[in-house]
């Protein structure tokens, strides 16, 4: 009997405990967020699905890392928060750069006067730009850096940056920007930009080679090495010289590769033993932006706090049309940032993420979810009329922010493929037939819930050269009927196939059915997608085979041109047609450049190349538009890609979050976010009242299970042998 009495007793005690807990705390039981310091307005957000790997501004080259780096570092230039099309504006610089063109002799020349050998950018750093408080700036009484250790043992007690008791700060100087550009050149840092920037910045590759040969132990002071193309005139003035004319270079200056890094900081992190405790610039960035990193545990959370030394910055008072109505100008002229703290919690699975968002524990549904987009679609439907949520969620007041990044996802034809490639009329018709058969609108409707814009050219919305309506329609695939774009019929595709020598999808000479091969990265395709594509091409009698592979194998296929139809995506670095049209520039073909080129279609058209080279160095204007249109037409006529689309990324915001407009390129927008913390607390409590009956039911169930056991035992004890 002891057993049962004890178990019943324990069950009762357990349920009493739970009840007691329920009565004594008013807070919801399910709050997953650790308590935040009182008095600080804290923004609760999410990292998903993976934590950032690099926070060093020369190494990082991923969006989910930029959302941290761009809050912490402030490059010289940045984008206007609200204006569209995207507009550059000075950030840490006092004004936009002064541009001078030089000939081979170094003489200043005007644009169009002669061959430009060098372009020189002169920038002035703002005087009120200060670094965040950081131990690397702390000095002892004699003005020497406080935390410089000669052995690993000395600094052993410091596990994280906040462990250092003393901090310091100083104004940002032009040299800090120059120092960072030299870090870019240092091969030890393995910057993804090194190769690209070496083509432009004068002296970069030379410095890189020089630094590569240096024997080093600990910190290497890059100030001791000269970079020809980067000149520090005084504390404020920085002059950058690039080769030839590359008007798009200013866009690069708004990226974190050109953020300031203080030599003191670099030296601090090279202290012996620091790397073993992950005390590196890669994990503890130090910048002059609106926020600073106070906790970096990529396994659980990353916490930013307001940088007390942040310069004066104000909310913009102009915006794009419609921004005022949307309330994006309500805070015009107010001091930035609005929030004191931002907590990003790691969330790997979708069900928890969405549940917490709906419960009000996350302010927004995500920061970047290029990866979770597919999952997002399954959680909600965002149609043309906005959010189509279930009735029980309708009163949540969730707002929607749509983000159309300057990006493209596309399936391209390998122009060197013997079956589908080539520039003869038959081959073009064959490709066009396939283009028509692949109903990209339907594809996006089904697999992206309609959140995408089917591309008519290699230029996505927001890029000069993109046109909505009839002007922007690809006449090879679509007809313009009654003011609407209409995909050409399957019959038309079949007719094209006949002309191409494949009647009903069968080779006119042998009768063999046409079989096309799609090379795609395994993660990027699912069974429903394959089924759907099979059905699309079956309409014109074409058979499809898939050759999914991991990234490394896919890359090898690109390098060897061993593809037929390949999938690819491109996210632009800056909003200029050049950054898209170069995807078809023939020297970019991996087979031509013997490198990881971006022209995986191996498209080669002299006409196109010529137009591209002309367009590249032209300033924006009608002449340039003509060249762009020429290239778009060639692209459409040659039918280079099977289809392409620009995804519309959907972000949901809880009702208490303001200024949620998305910027397609700039990630440094956290400073604009404003929160109604009181409303949040109220709603969280309202939405999360626990349902307690299952607890009682559970206790009852355990009890009910005990009864037959007790009875059986009793019966046995009473039994006789008769």
């Amino acid at each position: 009997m002891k057993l049962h009495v004890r178990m019943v007793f324990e069950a009762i005690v357990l349920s009493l405990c739970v009840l007691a807990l329920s009565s004594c705390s008013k807070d919801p039981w399910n709050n997953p967020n650790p308590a935040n310091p009182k008095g600080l307005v804290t923004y609760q957000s999410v990292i998903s699905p993976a934590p950032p790997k690099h926070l060093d501004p020369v190494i990082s080259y991923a969006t989910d890392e930029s959302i941290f780096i761009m809050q912490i570092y402030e490059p010289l230039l940045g984008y206007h928060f609200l204006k569209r099309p995207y507009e550059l504006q000075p950030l840490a610089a006092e004004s936009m750069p002064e541009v001078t063109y030089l000939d081979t002799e170094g003489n200043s020349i005007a644009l169009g006067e002669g061959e430009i050998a060098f372009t020189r950018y002169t920038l002035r750093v703002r005087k009120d730009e200060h670094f965040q408080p950081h131990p690397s700036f702390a000095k002892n009484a004699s003005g020497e850096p406080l935390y410089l250790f000669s052995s690993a043992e000395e600094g052993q007690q410091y596990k994280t940056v906040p462990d250092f008791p003393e901090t310091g700060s100083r104004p940002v100087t032009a040299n800090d920007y120059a120092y960072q550009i030299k870090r870019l050149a240092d091969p030890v840092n393995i910057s993804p930009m090194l190769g690209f920037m070496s083509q432009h910045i004068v002296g970069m590759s030379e410095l890189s080679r020089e630094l590569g040969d240096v024997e080093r132990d600990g910190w290497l002071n890059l100030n001791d090495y000269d970079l020809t193309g980067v000149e520090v005139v005084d504390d404020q003035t920085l002059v950058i010289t690039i080769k030839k004319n590359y008007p798009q270079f200013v866009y690069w200056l708004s990226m974190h590769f050109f953020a300031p890094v203080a030599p003191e900081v670099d030296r601090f992190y090279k202290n012996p033993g620091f790397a073993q405790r992950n005390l590196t610039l890669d994990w503890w960035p130090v910048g002059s932006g609106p926020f600073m990193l106070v906790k970096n545990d990529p396994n659980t959370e990353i916490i930013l706090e307001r940088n007390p030394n942040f310069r004066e910055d104000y909310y913009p008072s102009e915006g794009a049309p419609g921004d005022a109505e949307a309330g994006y100008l309500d805070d015009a002229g107010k001091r930035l940032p609005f929030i004191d703290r931002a907590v990003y919690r790691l969330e790997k699975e979708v069900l928890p993420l969405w549940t917490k968002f709906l419960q009000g524990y996350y302010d927004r549904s995500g920061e970047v979810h290029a990866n979770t987009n597919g999952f997002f679609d399954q959680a909600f439907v965002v149609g043309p009329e906005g959010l189509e949520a279930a009735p029980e969620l309708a009163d949540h007041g969730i707002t929607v922010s749509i983000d159309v990044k300057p990006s493209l996802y596309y399936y391209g034809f390998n122009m060197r493929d013997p079956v589908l490639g080539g520039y003869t009329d038959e081959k073009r018709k064959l490709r066009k037939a396939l283009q028509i058969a692949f109903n990209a609108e339907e594809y996006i409707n089904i697999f992206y819930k309609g959140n995408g814009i089917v591309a008519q050219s290699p230029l996505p919305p927001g890029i000069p050269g993109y046109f909505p309506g009839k002007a922007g329609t690809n006449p090879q695939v679509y007809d313009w009927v009654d003011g609407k774009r209409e995909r050409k019929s399957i019959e038309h595709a079949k007719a094209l196939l006949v002309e191409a020598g494949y009647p009903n999808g069968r080779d006119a000479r042998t009768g063999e059915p046409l079989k096309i091969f799609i090379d795609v990265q395994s993660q990027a395709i699912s069974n429903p997608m394959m089924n759907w594509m099979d059905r699309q091409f079956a309409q014109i009698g074409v058979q499809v085979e898939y050759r999914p592979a991991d990234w490394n194998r896919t890359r090898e296929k690109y390098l060897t041109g061993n593809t037929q139809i390949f999938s690819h995506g491109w996210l632009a670095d800056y909003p200029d047609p050049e950054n898209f049209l170069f995807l078809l520039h023939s020297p970019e073909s991996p087979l031509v450049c013997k490198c990881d080129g971006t022209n995986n279609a191996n498209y080669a058209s002299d006409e196109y190349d010529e137009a591209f080279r002309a367009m590249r160095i032209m300033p924006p204007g009608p002449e340039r538009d003509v060249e762009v249109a020429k290239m778009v037409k060639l692209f459409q006529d040659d039918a280079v890609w099977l289809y392409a689309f620009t995804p519309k990324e959907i972000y949901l915001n809880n009702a208490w979050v303001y200024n949620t407009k998305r910027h397609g390129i700039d990630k440094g927008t956290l400073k604009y976010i404003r929160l109604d913390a009181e409303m949040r607390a109220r709603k969280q409590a309202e939405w999360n009242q626990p349902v307690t009956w299952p607890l009682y039911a559970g206790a009852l169930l355990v009890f009910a299970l005990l009864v037959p056991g007790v009875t059986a035992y009793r019966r046995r004890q009473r039994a006789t042998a008769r």
Partner: protein
Amino acid sequence: MFAYIVRRLLYAIPILIGVNLLTFTLFFVVNSPDDMAVSQLGAKYVTPEAIQNWKVKNGYDKPLFLNSEEGGVGTITDTIFFTKSVKLFAFDFGRSESGRDITSDISVRMWPSLAVALPTFLVGIWVNICVALMVVMFHATRLDRWTVFVFVGLMSISYLFYIIGGQYMVAKTWRLVPISGFDAQGQVWKFLILPVLVGVIAGIGAGARWYRTLFLEEANQDYVRTARAKGCSEITILFRHILPNALIPILTGVVVLIPTLFMGSLLIESFFGIPGLGSYMLDAIRSQDFAIVRSMVFIGSILYITGLILTDISYTWADPRVRLN
């Protein structure tokens, strides 16, 4: 005893070498150092120089197993395998391919894993024993057969369903606990309730059924008959005779798992957002981070071998008949 343990530890060395050799072979066939460099460097603007730099920095610029250029000892020592393995045996796990220090990551992540796995393990055993004892009480009745059927039913449900179902009902619909997350400083228990509950319930079917078999096996032993003949009550027999004897196989069956608790549970951790070693491993597999995988395999093997040794030791402790040699 001491000699026995020392011998077992010595025996572990060739095993660990074998384990290492196997992981190296498997992973390098999949991923050449070049592949690893490309995966880490990202998709845009990758140059051969960058790949070479990466290989040098991470120590992958040597031959894999045999260095024919070096003469003598260098043939074996100046290779990726040797240099990386030697470090492992010194418990220097180095840096992950993305540049973090693995040792410090593991030492931090170990505790959340343990925080989930240990309660699941202990509560699980306790619940299973209680349930099994209860079933044994009314064994050979209709009820017994139904309970066994229910156990088999519980066993037949995929672990994923327990997790998904638990999250959906308990956390989403009933809002009783946070759906996922972990807070090392604050109220850890709040986050542990659901994973532990799911883990325990998912284990009841197999566990209680196994324990029931063990109890019944013991119940058929001669000494139980002796105890009956003495006049012991059923309860006394169950608790004083059957339980201590059945605990021997139970104990030795679970002791082997104790060290592996540190490794955490792959599924539980990734679904419940617990920053432990299980999710660490899963992330490493998915991102093909060889340095982490290698270290985890090494640690896993050591823990497994430790588990085996502990099992033997626990035998001597639980069963007076056993002596080690």
